[in-house]
Structures are given as C-alpha cells and as structure tokens.
C-alpha cells in the first residue's frame, strides 16, 4: 500500500515536471506573449536572485511577519472573547446575534473603513488583519462551546469546578475541532489581507512587490512573488493539518475528519 502510494507520488511529481516542461515549450515558441508568461528558468532566476540579493526576501519576511502577528492577535482575541460569550448565557443572549451579524461581511471590506479611522500605518495593517481574521475564530469558539454535551456541564457542577476550570477543562477541549478549522480559515484570510494592505499602502511586502513588478511588466519577478505566496499558502495549510492531526488524535477518525472539512 505504501509502496503504491510512493510510486503514485513519483508519477504525480513527474506529471508536474512535465507541465513545467510544457510551460517551457510555450514560452520557447512564444505561444503566449513573454510579457505575461516568463520562461520557467527566468522565473527561477528571479526567485533565486531576489532571495539572495535581498529585496524579495525582505518583502516575503515582511508579509510573513504581518500575517502571523495579525493572526496571533486574532487568535487571542477571537478565542478569548468567544470563550467569554460562549460560556455565559447572559452575554450570549445579548451579544450572540450581533456578533453573528458580522459573519457575512467580507474581511477586506473593512479595510476602507479602518483606513479612514486609523490611517495606513503599520499599526493599521496589523489591526485590519487581526480584525478581519478574528471573526471565524470568535464565531467558531462560541459555536463549539454551545454544542458541548450538556451532561458534561452537569458533571462539572457535581464536581464543584469553578468557571475557569470548566472553560479550560471541558469547554475549550470540546470546541477545539471548530476552533482549529476556523484557525486554518483565518490564516488564509490573514495572508490575503496582509497582501491587500501592502498593495494599498505601498509598505514593503509581497503585495507591493507584485504590484510593482506588474507595473514594470517584469513578469519573472511577478511570478517569483506569486510562487512565494503559493508556498506560504501551502505551508500554513500543511502546518494546520499537522496541528489538527496532533490535537485531535483523541477523536475518532470519522469525527476528526469531519472537523477538518467543516
């Protein structure tokens, strides 16, 4: 079984390499204008040069840092507020529907409003990322806590647990699958928001790098930037999958699987 998987993976990799070769042929015979599609080798050169000589590396690190910082802020705020609201029937009554009303608003639509209020500084970018990435986790934490088996709360009452213990020992562990799925979504939102803010503000980062490369019609640099953003997307997703597998190993495979899809 594992041998078949390995052979399959190698074959799949070969197909991907074949696609890159096709890309090479397309650019070689100029089937697509080279302004739009650089040859693979040129993209690779742009990637290596940009990373080695600094500017692309600097932009990538700036975007990565913004994304992660904003996301971490969102995690703390989202799970924190969510835990407060989700465990308090009073707060839930008063705040639940209001918080739910924010769900259909796209995170990026908050950017113009926040620009007007806090400006286009570095702090604004972080606050936009944090604010935009916060909602999935906030709502997932509330939802996760609301769907805890009520019997568990009775047990906690019988054991005379205090509120903090109930939240940390019963509530949050039950909500973990929901929270993890939301964290994955929030990471994607954080990456997109970081890039959009860099495009709008001109602060150093991959968003600004992409826009600048496109304006210069430097497709090799543009593709190098897109490639790095793709790698960021892939790595964050892979890390979340590992985290989910590790943190949800106590769940039955079926349930853990479902949480991953939700």
């Amino acid at each position, binding site marked *: 079984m594992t041998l078949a998987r390995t052979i*399959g*993976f190698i*074959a*799949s*990799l070969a*197909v*991907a390499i074949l*696609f890159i070769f096709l890309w090479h042929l397309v650019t070689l015979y100029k089937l697509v204008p080279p*302004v*739009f599609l650089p040859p693979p080798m040129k993209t690779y050169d742009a990637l290596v040069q940009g990373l080695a000589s600094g500017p692309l590396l600097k932009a990538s690190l700036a975007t990565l840092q913004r994304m992660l910082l904003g996301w971490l802020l969102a995690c703390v705020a989202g799970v924190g507020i969510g835990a407060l609201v989700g465990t308090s*029937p009073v707060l839930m*009554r*008063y*705040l*639940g*529907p*209001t918080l739910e*009303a*924010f769900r*259909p*608003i*796209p*995170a*990026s*639509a*908050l*950017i*113009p*409003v926040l*620009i*007007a*209020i806090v400006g286009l500084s570095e702090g604004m970018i972080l606050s936009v990322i944090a604010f935009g990435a916060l909602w999935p986790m906030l709502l997932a934490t509330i939802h996760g806590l609301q769907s805890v088996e009520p019997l568990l709360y009775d047990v906690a009452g019988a054991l005379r647990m205090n509120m903090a213990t109930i939240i940390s020992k019963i509530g949050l562990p039950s909500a973990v699958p929901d929270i993890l799925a939301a964290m994955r979504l929030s990471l*994607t939102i954080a*990456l*997109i928001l970081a*890039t*959009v803010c860099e*495009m*709008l503000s001109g602060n150093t980062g*991959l*968003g600004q790098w*992409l*826009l600048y*490369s*496109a304006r210069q*019609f430097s*497709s090799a640099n*543009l*593709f190098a*930037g*897109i490639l790095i*953003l*793709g790698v*960021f*997307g*892939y790595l964050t*997703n892979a890390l979340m999958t590992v985290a989910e597998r590790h943190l949800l190993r106590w769940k039955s495979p079926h349930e853990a699987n479902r949480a991953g899809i939700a």
Partner: protein
Amino acid sequence: MTAPAGPTRPFDWRPLAVPLALITAWELAMVLGPATTSETLAAPHAVLVGFFTIVADGTLLTATAQTLGAALGGLAAAVAIGLVLGLVLGLSALIDMLLEVSIEAIRPVPSIALVPLAMMIYGFGYRMEMSIIAFTAMWPVMILTRTAIRDLEPRLLEVAKALRMSFSDKVMKIMLPAIAPRVFVALRLAAGVALVVAITVEIASNPQGLGAAMILAQQTFHPELTLAILIWIGLLGYGINHALLYLQRRLFAFGTGSEVSHDAR
C-alpha cells in the same frame, strides 16, 4: 436557558439591546461631541441618509450590478471548470493520482496574488475580476464534486451497467442527478467565495463595483457612504446565502449534502 418555551413567548428584545445602545451612544457622541464634522466617522443618521442618497441617484444600483455581474460570470466559469475537473478526478483514480502534485501546487496560491497578473493581461474591468473569481471559486466545486462521485452508491453504477448505458448516458442520467444535492452545496459555498473575492479585487485595484465605491467614498472623505456600502455588502452576502439555502431545501428535500452522503451509505 430559562426562557419559557410556550407558544405565547414574548418577543425577545435582548439581542437588540446592545446594538441599539451602541448606535444611540454613537449618534449622541457624534451630534453633541466636538467631532460633528468628522472625516473619519459618520453618525448613524448620516449613514442612513447617505444610504438613501446613493440609492436615489443610482450609484449603489450600478455598483451592485457591477459586483454581482462579475461575481456571477466568475462563478459560472468556476462551476463549469470545477464540475468537469471534479467529474474527471472522481471517475478516474489514475488521473486523480497523476494530477495530485500539480493541483496541490496551484491550489494554495491566494486569489489576491493573481490580481497584478490579471491586471497586466486584461487591464481593468470585468475580465480580470472574473478570471480571479473563477480561479478561487472553482476549488470547492472541484473537491465536492470529486468526493460526491467517489461516494456514489455502487448499486447505481451496477444498474447503469445492467442497462448497458453508454458512458454519456451514465454521466447524464445516473451520476449528475445523484450528485446534484452536493453540487448545489458546492455552488452555495462558491457563491459566497465569489462575492468576497469580487469585493476584495475591487478594493485592491479594479475601479468598479461596490469595493471601488467604498474606496472612492473613503478617499473623498465620505465616511457615511463607506459605512453605508459596508452594511449593504453585509446584507447582500446574507441575502444571497439565505436565498440559496432556501433553494437548497426546496430543491433537495434531504437538506444538506452531508446528510445525503449518510443516506447513501
């Protein structure tokens, strides 16, 4: 938890208390406070007036039509591509295996990364926006279609075999009707993605639609319009999702796609 569950339950005003209090406080602060003519924030009444102004002069309608038009065009392409790819990958385990690395390498590219590229190829306008929407919204359709095909009841396929159906008949008469409920769920997810991506692209660069209208209002110091459009976008997203949920329940009595898959097992 202690609310009476009788049929004559009084109207629950509690969810409205906090928003109403906040709006009142905000209104009072803006009207009485020093920031009466603010360039960054607007009082709730100004937002309401601003909303009716852009409804009356037609700008909101134009921008909404542009955003929804781009979202719909991109969504149509996404569903077409996603459905075909999902069918192929679901039907052939070999092709699925061979394309795995290529697809997993392209899929994580964030939509926004393609904005400058699409701008370079198409310039501003519908085509660049729709191409990015199509790229982003096709993945959920592809994945859900593939899973739906995999989860098909084997007996259905045996029936097709027994009836000596042609391949196209098998796809059109057996498979597509069987996976329709789950494809509809995918369509609903993709529609949400399409609207979000449309607005994001408009905010990032494309000078049309609701996103660009928000940016314009912000740059010309009309915070009341920025907020009015923001709320409108929220209502639009809510309305579209609930309309599709309603349709889903009407069309497919099972409810959600996950229930269908459980039934099939």
